């Protein structure tokens, strides 16, 4: 597995996600946002968390039009894997690779806490190391993670089984309290139509080593590197 992590001005989680990928056995290259190409042999393009371009205009709006994103779009069109975490998810929505948009959190606060997620399906390249319906303990850290899509788009996403993760309580129940950013249908992560692009607000890369307090994020990187 050769992963290319795209770094934008203002990205700040690229080292963490690179470390998580390497722990699971992936080879990792860093790609600057102005590069028009991904390294030859790239299997997975990763858009890391952070505050690309200072979140100016809208989160992910300017990064979504960067030169490297043309390469990421071409990679996705060929069926290549793409993972966007947090700001990376916002960039994927702004670039048109995923439907919908991440709006300001409903409580208007930057939220930063541990968060349980329910794994909605395991027959994907991103989640095969998890069990169906498994509750995983990861983190969220964002001000704009409130997933929104128009009713037709939302119905299509749900109908096609494209929800990757939902915010839930420790027992796996979807509750209003567990969905603190106010996302429609408690959506925490979404797949593209082809299933090869995943965007998610929570940070699995935070919890890949016991020393740091959890390992539930490891499954995502193990699935990708398998």
């Amino acid at each position, binding site marked *: 597995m050769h992963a290319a992590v795209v770094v934008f001005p203002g990205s700040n989680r690229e080292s963490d996600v690179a470390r998580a990928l390497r722990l699971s056995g992936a080879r990792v290259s860093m790609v600057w946002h102005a590069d028009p190409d991904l390294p030859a042999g790239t299997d997975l393009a990763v858009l890391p968390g952070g505050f690309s371009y200072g979140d100016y*205009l*809208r989160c992910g709006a300017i990064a979504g*039009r960067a030169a490297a994103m043309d390469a990421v779009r071409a990679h996705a069109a060929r069926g290549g894997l793409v993972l966007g975490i947090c700001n990376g998810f916002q960039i994927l*929505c702004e670039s048109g690779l995923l439907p919908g*948009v991440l709006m*300001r959190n409903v409580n208007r606060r930057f939220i930063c806490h541990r968060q349980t997620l329910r794994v909605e399906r395991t027959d994907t390249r991103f989640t095969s190391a998890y069990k169906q319906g498994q509750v995983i303990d990861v983190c969220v850290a964002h001000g704009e993670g*409130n997933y929104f899509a128009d009713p037709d788009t939302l119905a299509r996403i749900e109908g096609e089984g494209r929800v990757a993760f939902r915010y839930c309580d420790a027992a796996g129940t979807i509750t209003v309290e567990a969905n603190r950013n106010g996302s429609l249908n408690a959506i925490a992560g979404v797949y593209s139509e082809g299933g090869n692009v995943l965007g998610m607000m929570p940070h699995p890369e935070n919890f890949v080593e016991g020393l740091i307090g959890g390992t539930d994020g490891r499954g995502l990187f193990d699935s990708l590197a398998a």
Partner: protein
Amino acid sequence: MKARIIVTLKTGVLDPQGKAIEAALRSLGVEGVDSVRQGKVFDLEVSAADGAAAEATLRTACEKLLANTVVENYAIEIL
């Protein structure tokens, strides 16, 4: 020529910031404001042969970058 672009949230899209401003106005004792929706204003200087050409350029700017048409509407004014 000078132009102004106004970007607003579409009807039905939740606007937490607008709601907060609405509540703040109420707490300041400003009476009679029934609702607030927050938007963005862009003032631009455009080089174009005529108003129609400028409007075409600005429409492209809105569609490509200034508005996310999933949740936002835009209006173009040539000043």
